[in-house]
């Protein structure tokens, strides 16, 4: 069917220990579904809310005052690139969700600019997810989601919402921005859950 183009290798390399269908890249491609929001740190908030309204909110200085962790992880984008050994600093969602009942099943991450993505509560607890504000020792750049983004590296990277502003607690799972337009509700790269039905 497709003709192979002589001498073309692309930016990515296949490697055996990557999730299926992924290609290794050394770049950090910038993906965005909309304009990059410019959020002043004075106005920045991270909120955890349920149906009754906001439960808890942190300002930028309050977030920085929380214990932070250094995270070294591979990341996998559904557009087929993977990147090894990225270094981040951020606050564990275990810290930010410590006051939330364990019976809440799901969260919807909301971003400045309107982006949303849904996650099971179990996948953002137990040291699996962070609100990250540093990348490779530098403040997280706006094009990569700064001032702060979600980091949920065991799922495809669209789940790691850029410009995150909060989590809404949900009893049942609801689709976010990409999940409502064909992308998988869960998004496990190792099971290649890219699209509905995968």
């Amino acid at each position, binding site marked *: 069917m*497709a*003709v*192979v*183009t*002589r*001498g*073309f*290798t*692309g*930016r*990515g390399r*296949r490697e055996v220990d990557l999730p299926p269908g992924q*290609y290794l890249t050394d*770049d950090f491609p910038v993906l965005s579904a909309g304009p990059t929001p410019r959020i002043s740190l004075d106005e920045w908030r991270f909120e955890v809310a349920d149906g009754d309204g906001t439960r808890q909110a942190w300002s930028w200085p309050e977030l920085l005052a929380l214990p932070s962790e250094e995270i070294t992880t591979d990341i996998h984008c559904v557009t*087929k690139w993977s990147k090894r050994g990225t270094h981040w600093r951020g606050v564990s969602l275990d810290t930010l969700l410590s006051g939330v009942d364990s019976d809440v099943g799901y969260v919807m991450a909301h971003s400045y600019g309107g982006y949303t993505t849904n996650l099971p509560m179990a996948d953002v607890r137990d040291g699996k997810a962070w609100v990250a504000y540093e990348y490779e020792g530098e403040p997280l750049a706006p094009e990569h989601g700064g001032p702060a983004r979600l980091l949920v590296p065991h799922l495809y990277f669209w789940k790691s919402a850029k410009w995150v502003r909060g989590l809404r607690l949900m009893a049942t799972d609801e689709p976010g921005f990409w999940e409502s337009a064909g992308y998988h509700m869960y998004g496990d790269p190792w099971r290649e859950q890219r699209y509905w039905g995968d």
Partner: protein
Amino acid sequence: MTELATPTRRPLAWRVATVAAVREESVVARTLVLDVPDWPGHIAGQHVDVRLTAPDGYTAQRSYSLASAARASAGYAVSTVEILVQRIPRGEVSPWLCDIAMVGDQFEIRGPVGGYFVWEPSRPEPVLLVAGGSGIAPLMAMIRTRKEAGSRVPFRLIYSVRDPDTLIFGEELARRARDDHGLDVTIVYTRQTPPGWRRPPGRLDAVLLAEAGWPATLAPACYVCGPTGFVETVADLLVAAGHDPAAIRTERFGPTG
């Protein structure tokens, strides 16, 4: 059954394109002449999607404007089309097209597509073309189509480039400015001019646009193509000069590396 008059109304398929010739157009850009069997023809200003496939199945896709005339260009069969490719440092597709592709190589193209940023010789109004950098490609297709179709519609091209090294189609534009009756070409150098150039380097502004373009009272069709910021600026200048926003068609380029 009624026969429809539109040859493009069929499923859009990927076709195999074979590189038939390569022409270096500047230090940063080259023309690839592509042989595409069963090419359905195109309208000046349309583009194609290009897809490269690696041996391991990895694919990368980009859009490129067609630079060739809507009809067959002299010396080539009807099934050849031309795309202009600018090398984007650290890009993925353009380095292959610019540095590796040679005659006989194959990849896939899909098109032609796009019915918005197009010019057809049947249009009677004068035309203003404003290009920034490699944004010259679809406008070149219009200039070449005008000549091949024998159109007498007056064209004015204002073409902004950084310096003489990044001027694309320089020789052909100079030749056409001399030979294509009714075509005026103004080159604007933003950083560095050739020796003895009459205008110091500088950005395209309202004065130059008024001088080298058409007055709004002539109601020209305006086509502006280039990087997003450039197109934004020029479109704003044209509207400020009284041009009907509906007569200004734009095509912004992302960095299609």
